[in-house]
Protein backbone atom coordinates (compact mmCIF):
# COMPACT_ATOMS: atom_id res chain seq x y z
CA UNK A 1 0.00 0.00 0.00
CA UNK A 2 2.86 2.30 0.80
CA UNK A 3 4.35 1.46 -2.56
CA UNK A 4 1.12 2.46 -4.25
CA UNK A 5 1.27 5.82 -2.53
CA UNK A 6 4.83 6.28 -3.68
CA UNK A 7 3.78 5.32 -7.18
CA UNK A 8 1.27 8.16 -7.07
CA UNK A 9 3.92 10.53 -5.76
CA UNK A 10 6.32 9.78 -8.56
CA UNK A 11 3.63 9.83 -11.22
CA UNK A 12 2.43 13.18 -9.96
CA UNK A 13 5.96 14.56 -9.88
CA UNK A 14 6.52 13.47 -13.45
CA UNK A 15 3.24 14.98 -14.57
CA UNK A 16 4.08 18.22 -12.80
CA UNK A 17 7.21 18.43 -14.90
CA UNK A 18 5.01 18.65 -17.99
CA UNK A 19 4.15 22.12 -16.75
CA UNK A 20 7.72 23.15 -17.43
CA UNK A 21 7.01 22.66 -21.14
CA UNK A 22 4.43 25.41 -20.91
CA UNK A 23 6.92 27.70 -19.21
CA UNK A 24 9.48 26.85 -21.87
CA UNK A 25 7.04 27.80 -24.61
CA UNK A 26 6.17 30.98 -22.77
CA UNK A 27 9.78 32.04 -22.34
CA UNK A 28 10.53 31.14 -25.94
CA UNK A 29 7.53 33.14 -27.08
CA UNK A 30 8.67 36.19 -25.14
CA UNK A 31 12.24 35.97 -26.43
CA UNK A 32 11.18 35.22 -29.99
CA UNK A 33 8.76 38.11 -30.17
CA UNK A 34 11.33 40.39 -28.63
CA UNK A 35 13.84 39.34 -31.27
CA UNK A 36 11.33 39.82 -34.06
CA UNK A 37 10.50 43.29 -32.81
CA UNK A 38 14.16 44.11 -32.24
CA UNK A 39 15.03 43.14 -35.82
CA UNK A 40 12.26 45.34 -37.16
CA UNK A 41 13.26 48.31 -35.03
CA UNK A 42 16.75 47.81 -33.63
CA UNK A 43 16.93 51.33 -32.24
CA UNK A 44 14.12 50.64 -29.79
CA UNK A 45 15.49 47.24 -28.73
CA UNK A 46 17.87 48.45 -26.04
CA UNK A 47 15.17 50.34 -24.18
CA UNK A 48 13.00 47.24 -23.94
CA UNK A 49 15.47 44.74 -22.47
CA UNK A 50 14.12 45.40 -18.97
CA UNK A 51 10.61 44.60 -20.17
CA UNK A 52 11.99 41.48 -21.84
CA UNK A 53 13.49 40.24 -18.60
CA UNK A 54 10.35 41.03 -16.62
CA UNK A 55 8.25 39.13 -19.13
CA UNK A 56 10.63 36.19 -19.12
CA UNK A 57 10.64 36.19 -15.33
CA UNK A 58 6.85 36.05 -15.17
CA UNK A 59 6.71 33.24 -17.71
CA UNK A 60 9.49 31.36 -16.02
CA UNK A 61 8.01 31.71 -12.53
CA UNK A 62 5.13 29.45 -13.53
CA UNK A 63 7.56 26.79 -14.69
CA UNK A 64 9.32 27.10 -11.38
CA UNK A 65 5.99 26.57 -9.65
CA UNK A 66 5.52 23.27 -11.47
CA UNK A 67 9.07 22.30 -10.56
CA UNK A 68 8.26 23.15 -6.96
CA UNK A 69 5.16 20.98 -7.07
CA UNK A 70 7.28 18.13 -8.38
CA UNK A 71 9.81 18.58 -5.59
CA UNK A 72 7.10 18.79 -2.96
CA UNK A 73 5.54 15.59 -4.23
CA UNK A 74 8.90 13.83 -4.24
CA UNK A 75 10.25 14.97 -0.93
CA UNK A 76 7.69 16.64 1.26
CA UNK A 77 4.48 14.61 0.99
Amino acid at each position, binding site marked *: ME*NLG*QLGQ*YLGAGLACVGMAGAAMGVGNVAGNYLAGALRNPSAAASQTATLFIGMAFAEALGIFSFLVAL*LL*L*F*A*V
Partner: protein
Amino acid sequence: MFSLLQQTAPVVVEESETVVITESAEAAGHGADAVAAADAAHGAAGHAASAPGMPQLDFTTFGNQIFWLLVILAVIYWVLSRIALPRIGGVLSDRQGAITGDLMAAEEFKHKAKEAEAAYDKALADARAEAGKIVAANKAEIQKELDAAIAHADAEIAARSAESEKRIGEIRASAVEDARSVAREVTAALVENFGGKPDQGLVDTTVDQRLKGVLQ
Protein backbone atom coordinates in the same frame (compact mmCIF):
# COMPACT_ATOMS: atom_id res chain seq x y z
CA MET B 1 15.29 5.83 -6.05
CA PHE B 2 12.69 3.99 -4.03
CA SER B 3 15.20 2.07 -2.01
CA LEU B 4 17.33 5.18 -1.75
CA LEU B 5 14.53 7.14 -0.16
CA GLN B 6 13.72 4.27 2.11
CA GLN B 7 17.33 4.05 3.21
CA THR B 8 17.73 7.71 3.94
CA ALA B 9 14.32 8.30 5.41
CA PRO B 10 14.80 6.69 8.83
CA VAL B 11 18.11 8.45 9.34
CA VAL B 12 16.66 11.86 8.66
CA VAL B 13 13.66 11.17 10.84
CA GLU B 14 16.01 10.22 13.64
CA GLU B 15 17.93 13.43 13.22
CA SER B 16 14.88 15.60 13.22
CA GLU B 17 13.59 13.79 16.28
CA THR B 18 16.75 14.62 18.18
CA VAL B 19 16.36 18.16 16.96
CA VAL B 20 12.83 18.22 18.29
CA ILE B 21 13.94 17.04 21.68
CA THR B 22 16.75 19.53 22.02
CA GLU B 23 14.68 22.36 20.59
CA SER B 24 11.79 21.77 22.92
CA ALA B 25 14.22 21.51 25.81
CA GLU B 26 15.69 24.82 24.74
CA ALA B 27 12.26 26.36 24.40
CA ALA B 28 11.34 25.15 27.84
CA GLY B 29 14.57 26.56 29.21
CA HIS B 30 14.49 29.98 27.54
CA GLY B 31 11.15 31.40 26.63
CA ALA B 32 12.95 34.03 24.60
CA ASP B 33 12.99 32.31 21.24
CA ALA B 34 9.45 31.12 21.29
CA VAL B 35 9.13 31.77 17.59
CA ALA B 36 12.02 29.54 16.71
CA ALA B 37 10.71 26.89 19.03
CA ALA B 38 7.27 27.13 17.50
CA ASP B 39 8.83 26.82 14.07
CA ALA B 40 10.82 23.87 15.26
CA ALA B 41 7.84 22.12 16.75
CA HIS B 42 5.81 22.78 13.63
CA GLY B 43 8.54 21.46 11.36
CA ALA B 44 9.16 18.52 13.56
CA ALA B 45 5.53 17.56 13.46
CA GLY B 46 5.64 17.67 9.69
CA HIS B 47 8.81 15.62 9.67
CA ALA B 48 7.56 12.98 11.97
CA ALA B 49 4.53 12.45 9.80
CA SER B 50 6.37 11.91 6.53
CA ALA B 51 9.77 11.30 5.01
CA PRO B 52 11.32 14.77 4.68
CA GLY B 53 13.74 15.34 1.85
CA MET B 54 13.81 19.04 1.23
CA PRO B 55 16.09 20.97 3.55
CA GLN B 56 14.23 24.05 2.34
CA LEU B 57 11.16 22.84 4.21
CA ASP B 58 13.02 22.01 7.39
CA PHE B 59 11.35 24.65 9.53
CA THR B 60 13.77 24.15 12.40
CA THR B 61 16.35 26.15 10.48
CA PHE B 62 14.04 29.00 9.45
CA GLY B 63 14.53 31.09 12.55
CA ASN B 64 18.28 30.78 12.22
CA GLN B 65 18.33 31.73 8.56
CA ILE B 66 15.96 34.64 8.98
CA PHE B 67 17.89 36.00 11.94
CA TRP B 68 21.23 35.85 10.17
CA LEU B 69 19.77 37.15 6.93
CA LEU B 70 18.44 40.23 8.70
CA VAL B 71 21.80 40.76 10.41
CA ILE B 72 23.71 40.44 7.14
CA LEU B 73 21.26 42.64 5.26
CA ALA B 74 21.56 45.30 7.93
CA VAL B 75 25.35 45.12 7.72
CA ILE B 76 25.36 45.37 3.92
CA TYR B 77 22.85 48.20 3.99
CA TRP B 78 24.91 50.09 6.52
CA VAL B 79 28.15 49.59 4.58
CA LEU B 80 26.57 50.56 1.28
CA SER B 81 24.56 53.55 2.40
CA ARG B 82 27.23 54.97 4.70
CA ILE B 83 30.48 54.24 2.85
CA ALA B 84 30.32 52.66 -0.56
CA LEU B 85 27.49 54.39 -2.38
CA PRO B 86 28.33 57.99 -1.39
CA ARG B 87 31.93 57.32 -2.33
CA ILE B 88 31.14 55.83 -5.74
CA GLY B 89 28.52 58.50 -6.40
CA GLY B 90 31.10 61.14 -5.48
CA VAL B 91 33.69 59.61 -7.77
CA LEU B 92 31.19 59.44 -10.63
CA SER B 93 30.06 63.05 -10.20
CA ASP B 94 33.69 64.16 -9.83
CA ARG B 95 34.48 62.43 -13.07
CA GLN B 96 31.46 63.98 -14.73
CA GLY B 97 32.61 67.37 -13.49
CA ALA B 98 36.15 66.76 -14.65
CA ILE B 99 34.93 65.65 -18.06
CA THR B 100 32.67 68.69 -18.38
CA GLY B 101 35.49 70.97 -17.25
CA ASP B 102 37.89 69.38 -19.68
CA LEU B 103 35.39 69.67 -22.49
CA MET B 104 34.89 73.35 -21.73
CA ALA B 105 38.65 73.89 -21.57
CA ALA B 106 39.00 72.08 -24.87
CA GLU B 107 36.32 74.31 -26.34
CA GLU B 108 38.22 77.34 -25.02
CA PHE B 109 41.46 76.10 -26.54
CA LYS B 110 39.74 75.44 -29.81
CA HIS B 111 38.39 78.97 -29.82
CA LYS B 112 41.86 80.33 -29.06
CA ALA B 113 43.38 78.21 -31.80
CA LYS B 114 40.81 79.58 -34.23
CA GLU B 115 41.63 83.13 -33.20
CA ALA B 116 45.34 82.46 -33.56
CA GLU B 117 44.73 80.98 -36.96
CA ALA B 118 42.75 84.02 -38.05
CA ALA B 119 45.51 86.32 -36.75
CA TYR B 120 48.10 84.27 -38.55
CA ASP B 121 46.12 84.40 -41.76
CA LYS B 122 45.74 88.16 -41.44
CA ALA B 123 49.46 88.60 -40.77
CA LEU B 124 50.23 86.44 -43.76
CA ALA B 125 47.95 88.46 -46.02
CA ASP B 126 49.46 91.72 -44.71
CA ALA B 127 52.94 90.44 -45.31
CA ARG B 128 51.97 89.41 -48.82
CA ALA B 129 50.52 92.83 -49.56
CA GLU B 130 53.62 94.54 -48.13
CA ALA B 131 55.89 92.31 -50.14
CA GLY B 132 53.90 93.08 -53.28
CA LYS B 133 54.18 96.77 -52.59
CA ILE B 134 57.93 96.55 -52.04
CA VAL B 135 58.37 94.50 -55.15
CA ALA B 136 56.37 97.01 -57.19
CA ALA B 137 58.37 99.91 -55.79
CA ASN B 138 61.65 98.15 -56.50
CA LYS B 139 60.48 97.32 -59.96
CA ALA B 140 59.66 100.96 -60.68
CA GLU B 141 62.99 102.13 -59.34
CA ILE B 142 64.85 99.53 -61.30
CA GLN B 143 62.89 100.47 -64.39
CA LYS B 144 63.83 104.10 -63.87
CA GLU B 145 67.49 103.30 -63.44
CA LEU B 146 67.32 101.02 -66.37
CA ASP B 147 65.74 103.72 -68.52
CA ALA B 148 68.38 106.22 -67.42
CA ALA B 149 71.15 103.74 -68.16
CA ILE B 150 69.66 102.96 -71.56
CA ALA B 151 69.38 106.63 -72.41
CA HIS B 152 72.95 107.20 -71.26
CA ALA B 153 74.14 104.25 -73.27
CA ASP B 154 72.21 105.49 -76.32
CA ALA B 155 73.83 108.92 -76.01
CA GLU B 156 77.24 107.35 -75.65
CA ILE B 157 76.65 105.15 -78.62
CA ALA B 158 75.46 108.11 -80.66
CA ALA B 159 78.53 110.13 -79.67
CA ARG B 160 80.86 107.29 -80.40
CA SER B 161 79.27 106.53 -83.74
CA ALA B 162 79.40 110.24 -84.69
CA GLU B 163 83.08 110.33 -83.84
CA SER B 164 83.69 107.16 -85.76
CA GLU B 165 81.74 108.62 -88.65
CA LYS B 166 83.95 111.69 -88.54
CA ARG B 167 87.12 109.66 -88.41
CA ILE B 168 85.93 107.45 -91.18
CA GLY B 169 85.23 110.59 -93.21
CA GLU B 170 88.66 111.92 -92.40
CA ILE B 171 90.24 108.65 -93.29
CA ARG B 172 88.30 108.53 -96.49
CA ALA B 173 89.23 112.12 -97.34
CA SER B 174 92.86 111.51 -96.66
CA ALA B 175 92.65 108.31 -98.66
CA VAL B 176 91.14 110.23 -101.59
CA GLU B 177 93.81 112.89 -101.24
CA ASP B 178 96.53 110.28 -101.14
CA ALA B 179 95.12 108.51 -104.15
CA ARG B 180 94.92 111.84 -106.04
CA SER B 181 98.46 112.83 -105.20
CA VAL B 182 99.64 109.34 -106.11
CA ALA B 183 97.74 109.56 -109.36
CA ARG B 184 99.20 113.06 -110.12
CA GLU B 185 102.66 111.89 -109.34
CA VAL B 186 102.22 108.76 -111.38
CA THR B 187 100.77 110.81 -114.23
CA ALA B 188 103.59 113.37 -114.06
CA ALA B 189 106.15 110.56 -113.96
CA LEU B 190 104.53 108.90 -116.96
CA VAL B 191 104.48 112.10 -118.90
CA GLU B 192 108.13 112.65 -118.02
CA ASN B 193 109.02 109.17 -119.08
CA PHE B 194 107.30 109.66 -122.43
CA GLY B 195 109.63 112.59 -122.83
CA GLY B 196 107.22 115.33 -122.13
CA LYS B 197 107.55 118.09 -119.76
CA PRO B 198 104.73 117.76 -117.42
CA ASP B 199 102.72 120.82 -116.88
CA GLN B 200 101.83 120.44 -113.27
CA GLY B 201 98.63 122.40 -113.44
CA LEU B 202 97.27 120.58 -116.44
CA VAL B 203 98.13 117.20 -115.01
CA ASP B 204 96.35 118.09 -111.82
CA THR B 205 93.11 119.18 -113.47
CA THR B 206 93.11 116.20 -115.84
CA VAL B 207 93.70 113.70 -113.07
CA ASP B 208 91.03 115.32 -110.97
CA GLN B 209 88.58 115.18 -113.84
CA ARG B 210 89.30 111.50 -114.43
CA LEU B 211 89.19 110.66 -110.80
CA LYS B 212 85.86 112.37 -110.25
CA GLY B 213 83.96 109.36 -111.51
CA VAL B 214 86.07 106.77 -109.74
CA LEU B 215 86.46 108.15 -106.30
CA GLN B 216 83.47 108.89 -104.29
